């Protein structure tokens, strides 16, 4: 049934239909609407056979999820920003122990300065934690990705983050069609843990590994992660077959003509300018690039859905040696450049593509169609640099009113 739903409600209902055994969370904007909805469903019984645990911190949220998952339950939590960083130690721990927890990250900037609005700094800070990181382009995909995330995570024994832009998606209402409980029951296998705290088959989980075994542990974890690309792709294909719509996959291809999402879209060519982006800005790019396509400008669009594992081969193929690649980046590696750009650059090493990094939308700055269109036009004119900040106010930030503080320089 198509309906208008807030993104958070769409995610919460879909998560509930995945039948988690334990949901635990600590409130932080902009994740709150998701966990409020789940808490409500746990009380009404719509979310049955599930314990909802109100914990005292994000660190405990992830820790409760670790215990629950190790004890054999499908475990879910959600967080953002400072909360993700506060639980960082446990985020790494869950991955190291191979516990397929699913977590929504309602992407938000990381302070200081404190800022509750969207960018990708939080997820980028956890990119090496050993989690799958799937980025939703819109609220339909945000909801659907959770089904794929549970399936892929549990097959792999690797936890999964579903990243959705905070406020931009979590608090926006869109027309969506949610997977029904029956559909998900038919699609998502019941959780059969690969390792479990079982009184009949006792096991020790979480031992210390010394120098003689740690490298091998990490090597095996990496190999498993390399399998993840195929597993995510396979579950996404199954999802498309079962539900008749695109979600997940490693990258998102877009038709050169309509700029609609199209898994069958041909790769870009060496005469194209291709924009690469992640998350909700892909929708704005669809709108922004339309007038350029209408003028006959050879511009293409590719989305990165799976940031971890990073789909180097799929991306290289989709970009097809594009002359210009503009990466719209919603996070910054301070002192280096755009965070997504770094991974794209590694994928394109040795190719002739010229990469431009456009850092945009930090801390909730709206990304405007006209600004994106302008960046493409400047690239075509040879005027776009290797790293630019979109809509940067070159006059600097507003100075506090006189008397509020002393400005020394």
């Amino acid at each position: 049934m198509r309906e208008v739903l807030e993104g958070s409600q769409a995610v919460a209902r879909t998560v509930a239909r995945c039948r988690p055994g334990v949901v635990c969370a600590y409130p932080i904007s902009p994740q709150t609407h998701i966990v409020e909805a789940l808490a409500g469903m746990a009380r009404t019984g719509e979310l049955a056979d599930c314990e909802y645990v109100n914990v005292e911190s994000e660190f405990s949220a992830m820790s409760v999820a670790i215990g629950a998952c190790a004890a054999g339950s499908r475990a879910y939590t959600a967080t953002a920003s400072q909360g993700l960083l506060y639980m960082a130690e446990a985020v790494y721990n869950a991955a190291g122990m191979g516990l397929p927890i699913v977590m929504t990250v309602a992407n938000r900037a990381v302070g200081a300065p404190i800022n509750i609005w969207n960018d990708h700094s939080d997820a980028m800070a956890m990119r090496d934690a050993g989690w799958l990181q799937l980025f939703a382009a819109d609220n339909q995909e945000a909801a659907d990705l959770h089904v794929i995330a549970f399936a892929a995570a549990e097959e792999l024994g690797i936890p999964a983050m579903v990243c959705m832009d905070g406020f931009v998606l979590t608090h926006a209402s869109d027309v969506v069609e949610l997977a029904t409980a029956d559909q998900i029951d038919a699609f998502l296998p019941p959780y059969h843990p690969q390792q479990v705290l079982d009184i009949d088959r006792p096991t020790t989980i979480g031992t210390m590994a010394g120098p003689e075994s740690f490298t091998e542990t990490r090597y095996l974890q990496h190999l498993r992660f390399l399998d993840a690309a195929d597993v995510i792709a396979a579950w996404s294909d199954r999802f498309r077959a079962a539900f008749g719509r695109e979600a997940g996959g490693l990258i998102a291809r877009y038709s050169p003509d309509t700029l609609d999402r199209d898994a069958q879209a041909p790769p870009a060519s060496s005469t194209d300018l291709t924009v690469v982006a992640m998350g909700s800005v892909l929708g704005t790019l669809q709108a922004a690039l339309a007038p350029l396509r209408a003028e006959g400008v050879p511009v293409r669009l590719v989305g990165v859905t799976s940031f971890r594992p990073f789909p180097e081969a799929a991306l290289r193929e989709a970009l097809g040696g594009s002359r210009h690649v503009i990466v719209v980046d919603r996070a910054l590696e301070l002192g280096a450049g755009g965070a997504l750009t770094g991974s794209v650059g590694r994928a394109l090493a040795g190719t002739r593509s010229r990469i431009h990094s456009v850092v945009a939308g930090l801390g909730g700055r709206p990304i405007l169609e006209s600004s994106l269109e302008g960046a493409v036009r400047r690239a075509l004119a040879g005027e776009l640099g290797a790293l630019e900040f979109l809509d940067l106010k070159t006059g600097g930030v507003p100075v506090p009113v006189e008397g509020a503080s002393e400005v020394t320089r």
Partner: protein
Amino acid sequence: MTTVHIPFLQTGTLAVGGRLLTEEERSVQSHADRPSSLTKGHRACQGCAEALAARWVMDTAVEAAGGKLIVANATGCLEVFSTLYPESAWKPPWIHSLFANAAAVATGIAASLHAQGRDDVRVLAQGGDGGTVDIGLAAVSGMFERNDDVLYVCYDNQGYMNTGVQRSSATPATARTATTPAVGRHPGQAFGQGKSMVKIAMAHEIPYVASATPADLRDLEAKVRTAMSIRGARYLHVLVPCPLGWGSASSASIALARAAVQSGIFPVIEARAGELTDVQRIRERVDVSAYLEPQARFAHLFTPGGEDALDRWRALAEANIRRYDLLGGAS
């Protein structure tokens, strides 16, 4: 005049005394089929009271749970000496996640079991004083406050012994540690610092709080049994002398635990819903020096100039004796 029940100290061991008791009076350890939850081959130091206490706690809890017990362990000595990959000294299903989160991991296990309808399986969390009183306090407090169905056991050796004997907020006044050296005008850990985890636990008004030491293993066993008979959040605080960190003879651990109790320094109590319900009386009172002097961490108290600090220790013991009526004079 009050009377003090004096148990026969040998009955808690595998020695002949245990076999003199009737079957139901014998300790778990005297059974031929004892669980041996923390089994041989681990790497604890000689004289480690934590290893002894953990074995008693765990075996009692396993037996009380009918063999259905899952354990969450904080990072620390107990974890490191028992589970160096690829070996494990634990027989029950056991998980170590992080230093600060044992209580929360246990909550997750309990929540999972409840969601699965497996309320027959019980959950125990354990850690040292660092993982409980310092870095893990928020998670422990959260578990208490929600009254999650977890027995949390703190083995308190009064410092960060695993990392080389640094001060924790359970380190007693004047104790020398690597970060409170015995130099300057006030050597060792300062007076007036530190916190009582037993009182903190009681303030949460959880169903059961108790303290114990390995000097009275039958008492420790009885408290674990009581705790396991109750549902909800329960807390057991066990003082465990540490030969390495305390600078004591490895043969002295039990004697030191006993001296801590008999001097009034470590009150052995039980509390329910925040109310003190039982206190173990001092049987044969000893001076605090009997507890302090065998420990190298307090050596500076027994050099010229240490008298003032010793007096302050005696005042601490007096305060405990008054507060908990450890001599029974009030009744």
